[in-house]
């Protein structure tokens, strides 16, 4: 797979494909080999498209909304997590993929799931406030990490290691030791959460990502909440220096009034931060507060993932469409 970093040109972004799923989409991921893209839906299914042909196959085994997807590094296995609390592993290359294993991973909703760099571990988190590290070999729990004071939303492995980071609904980011003990470090991003009365936290760490160089950890979510039940808030990304824990300038969309949550932020290998906010795809240069470009899309986006060609961004939409945007000039070819 050749990369095309030099062709990355958000100002020239244009719609590449628009595929219809069976229901509203909550999440999507592109396989590291670039052959498939998968999306999770609120009709409890996963849709798998073959990128070259647009051919769609439905994967059915979850019993609630499918909230998170993650591919193994070799692209052979799709791991999915849903509001049924299940972690399911799929042989994604099969003509009609079936569950290889179904694990009841959490009591209540499973919120976050990620695969380690070598594919040997999966980390999950859920409404039971637990973070669990699993072996993909025998599907046994390697460690259960406790300490989040409220529901953890998302998890990631620290690049190249078995160390875990997790972010919760009240804005804590915990960095955990590999297999045991409490959190080694805490990053305080509580500014991106608020409370509705005393009852319900709103916001928190919606997604976590590391910069390509590994020097920053970035949380996406929302802030500036004026009326939570009405959805009056602004999308934001908060970054920390991974080594020192120093908080770095926030990145938000200042050029346009958007009631939005940044449901996911991902880094382009060149360092540009890509964030989805309502119907917009925003682009930030490292360290700059405001977006340098916005790409409008037809509907609300709830997840996105960058194709390994580094110029195609796949977006999962509320209207049940999976769209791809080429972040490059029309003549660019991966």
């Amino acid at each position: 797979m050749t990369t095309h970093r030099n062709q990355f040109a958000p100002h020239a972004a244009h719609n590449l494909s628009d595929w219809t799923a069976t229901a509203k989409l909550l999440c999507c991921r592109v396989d590291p080999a670039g052959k498939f893209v998968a999306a999770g839906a609120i009709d409890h299914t996963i849709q798998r498209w073959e990128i070259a042909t647009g051919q769609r196959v439905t994967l059915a085994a979850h019993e609630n909304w499918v909230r998170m997807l993650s591919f193994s590094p070799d692209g052979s296995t799709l791991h999915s997590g849903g509001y049924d609390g299940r972690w399911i592993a799929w042989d994604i290359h099969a003509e009609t993929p079936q569950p290889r294993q179904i694990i009841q991973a959490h009591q209540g909703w499973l919120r976050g799931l990620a695969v380690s760099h070598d594919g040997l571990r999966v980390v999950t988190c859920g409404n039971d406030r637990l973070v669990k590290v699993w072996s993909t070999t025998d599907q046994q729990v390697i460690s259960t990490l406790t300490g989040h004071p409220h529901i953890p939303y998302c998890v990631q492995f620290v690049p190249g290691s078995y160390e875990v980071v997790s972010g919760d609904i009240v804005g804590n980011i915990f960095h955990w030791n590999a297999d045991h003990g409490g959190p080694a470090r805490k990053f305080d991003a509580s500014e991106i959460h608020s409370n509705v009365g005393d009852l319900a936290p709103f916001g928190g760490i919606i997604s976590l990502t590391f910069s390509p160089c590994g020097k920053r950890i970035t949380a996406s979510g929302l802030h500036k909440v004026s009326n939570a039940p009405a959805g009056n808030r602004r999308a934001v990304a908060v970054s920390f220096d991974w080594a020192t824990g120093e908080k770095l300038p926030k990145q938000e969309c200042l050029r346009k009034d958007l009631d939005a949550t940044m449901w996911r932020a991902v880094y382009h290998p060149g360092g540009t931060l890509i964030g989805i906010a309502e119907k917009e795809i925003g682009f930030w240069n490292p360290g700059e507060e405001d977006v340098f470009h916005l790409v409008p899309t037809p509907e609300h986006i709830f997840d996105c993932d960058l194709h390994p060609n580094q110029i195609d961004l796949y977006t999962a939409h509320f209207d049940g469409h999976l769209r791809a945007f080429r972040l490059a000039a029309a003549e660019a070819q991966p």
Partner: protein
Amino acid sequence: MTGNQYTPCGTIDHGLARRQFMGEFLTGAGTIAGTSLFSHPIGAGEIARQSRSVVVVFLNGGISQFESWDPKSDLETGGPFRSIATSVPGIHVSELLPRTAQQMHHMALVRSVSTDLDDHGLANNLVRSGRMTRSATEYPELGAVVARGLERPDFPLPGHITTMVGGVGGRANNAAYLGPRYASVAVGAENGGIVNTQLPEGMTVAVDSRRHDWRRFVNSRHRSRVQSAEMDAYTQSYEQALRLMERRELFDISQETDTVQQAYGKSEFGKQLLLARRLVEQEVPFIEIQHAGWDFHHNNFEFHLHYVADFDSPFAHFLTDLAQRGLLERTLVIVMTEFGRTPSINAGYGRDHYPKAWSIAAAGCGIQHGAVIGSTDAKGVEVTDRKVDHRHLFHTWLRAVGIDSSSQFDIGGRKFPIADPAFGPIEELLA
């Protein structure tokens, strides 16, 4: 007294309002003086009925029927919460209500409420008063009607109480032509009882008593020359406040054992329910507890996850506690809200206002336990069976506690039906 006897200033308003305190009313087709609104002849049964209470838990903002009493788990638009079985075979509610589900044998559900208004204020008034407020006529809310209907001579406490956590508020303006005597009094509870009810430091009971004697004397002299409903209400408020001060310990939930307090929980809602139980023990006719903030146009499912959890455990324990103390058989508990929420999901994963097909729950006295009234279609869009609205419900709540909802108030010679006379109760919901 049925003639028009106007106050010296001669205004009809004053005449009407003054008569509010005279306790005259009509029932059925004729005037009955000096009796009550009860739906059966006076006797031991009436005395029992007079000790009845109504507790309204008002989920202000509009709880989603899908995420509570009428789950549609199989629908794509039904949301991510499953339905669970209850203590009554065949009845399912949202999984967000695991503890309340186990009290369903004390409860009934109405899944076919259909109203017209999707504005919070107007809809709120609609379900509370059982009628549409017109510019010329405001109607008393359920609490005022119940306070009037279950009124007993010399009852030392207000008949219509809204609980608060901490603080104490004044009277609301929700009794319309029944007058401020029956309007709600906001009473706060925290450790030690009602705030601001201790005598100031240095003030003795004797001195305080002389102060009040002087106030009564001055009031009496003034009233001999000028009479007004407002003045009467003002005077009555003073006397009622004194009676409240004498009974401040009733509002002190810290007098409950640790076990009891822990069972109700540490939340504001739990504390208010515990206070409500203490007031039910005192036979206060009407108590309302507000649980506000349910207007989830955005993030509906996340917010319901937390809000219904805050409701479920204390509410279930409240029913258990009432039942174990033998209070539930004389207490009607209503879980009220102003409308439901859309069966569709908007792009913010919220649900918007939806008065067309929604649900309400009740428990306790006067209703069929384990009953489910009406139903909605598979998608929860339309009522398909036994459509009812605020007018039917208003009749039903009154009848459940023994008040004849077909009777009338006589206010200055004008007859005001207690409830909309074109409608009646949901008979199959009544015990």
